[in-house]
């Protein structure tokens, strides 16, 4: 295994610091919301993880296109990394939303358009790993994976846009709401915690993707060594 590059070491430290600061801003710095109380603080991590989750699914689709054009295995490793890290973050998003919904909506779950599309998106990407596990040939696995992420990538903008297109109880944070929807308003300190949360999760996301790409390279090396030894 190649030694860890200095830039990655710096990014590791930056990620830990960013996560610590984002947690401080969300739990201490931001004021308590008057209507919902303390549970509103999960919103800062809910949005941060949702942002990198959906971003990663779109990036994976782009990497899938790049793989189909170039047939370069590096794009496949990048695609797997983006999907894996995003699936973890998006799972956190869904559970945090459910925790917030219990006191806010008096239910853990409801089949609201946003919640439904988010659950479908998560299931699509869990199935992606099942698909890859079922294919032995690396080239075929990468090709099928690329086509799958390309199609699956459509679910990310749909999940983002659904609260703007349909009648829903999910509040809108970014952009304008129509007359039937709830628009979440924030004070200045809340905005600081919110935007820093987005920044922190972006740094963590890049760091984890880099680590996962390196892991993918090692997986490929072991796969090739196994083939050589068995011949």
């Amino acid at each position: 295994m190649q030694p860890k590059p200095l830039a990655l070491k710096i990014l590791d430290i930056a990620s830990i610091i960013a996560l610590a600061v984002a947690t401080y801003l969300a739990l201490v710095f931001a004021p308590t919301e008057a209507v919902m109380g303390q549970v509103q603080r999960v919103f800062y991590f809910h949005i941060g993880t949702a942002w990198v989750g959906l971003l990663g699914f779109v990036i994976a689709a782009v990497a899938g296109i790049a793989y189909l054009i170039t047939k370069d295995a590096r794009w496949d490793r990048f695609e797997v990394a983006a999907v894996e890290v995003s699936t973890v973050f998006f799972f956190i998003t869904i559970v945090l939303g459910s925790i917030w919904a219990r006191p806010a909506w008096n239910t853990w779950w409801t089949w609201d358009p946003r919640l439904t599309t988010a659950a479908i998106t998560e299931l699509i990407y869990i199935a992606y790993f099942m698909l890859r596990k079922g294919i032995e040939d690396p080239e075929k696995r990468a090709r099928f994976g690329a086509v799958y992420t390309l199609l699956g990538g459509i679910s990310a903008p749909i999940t983002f846009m659904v609260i703007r297109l349909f009648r829903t109880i999910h509040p809108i944070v970014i952009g304008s709401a129509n007359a039937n929807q709830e628009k979440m308003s924030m004070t200045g300190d809340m905005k600081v915690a919110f935007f820093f949360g987005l920044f922190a999760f972006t740094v963590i996301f890049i760091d984890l993707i880099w680590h996962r790409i390196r892991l993918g390279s090692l997986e490929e090396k072991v796969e090739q060594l196994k083939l050589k030894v068995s011949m």
Partner: protein
Amino acid sequence: MLLDATPDTSGYMIAGYVFSFVVMGIYVFSMYLRNANLERDAETLESLQAEEAKKSSSPKKK
């Protein structure tokens, strides 16, 4: 009184943050474990490959 007091929802907040850190921790640990296992596999396979190369290059006994 027109306005109700802010409800105590701190238990949900704690649950949310504990869950987030636990999931992120498990993921990072899983990556560390996978990396350690693959490095061990690579070392074993490389030594096997070196042994095989040694055997095939050494002169045969009469």
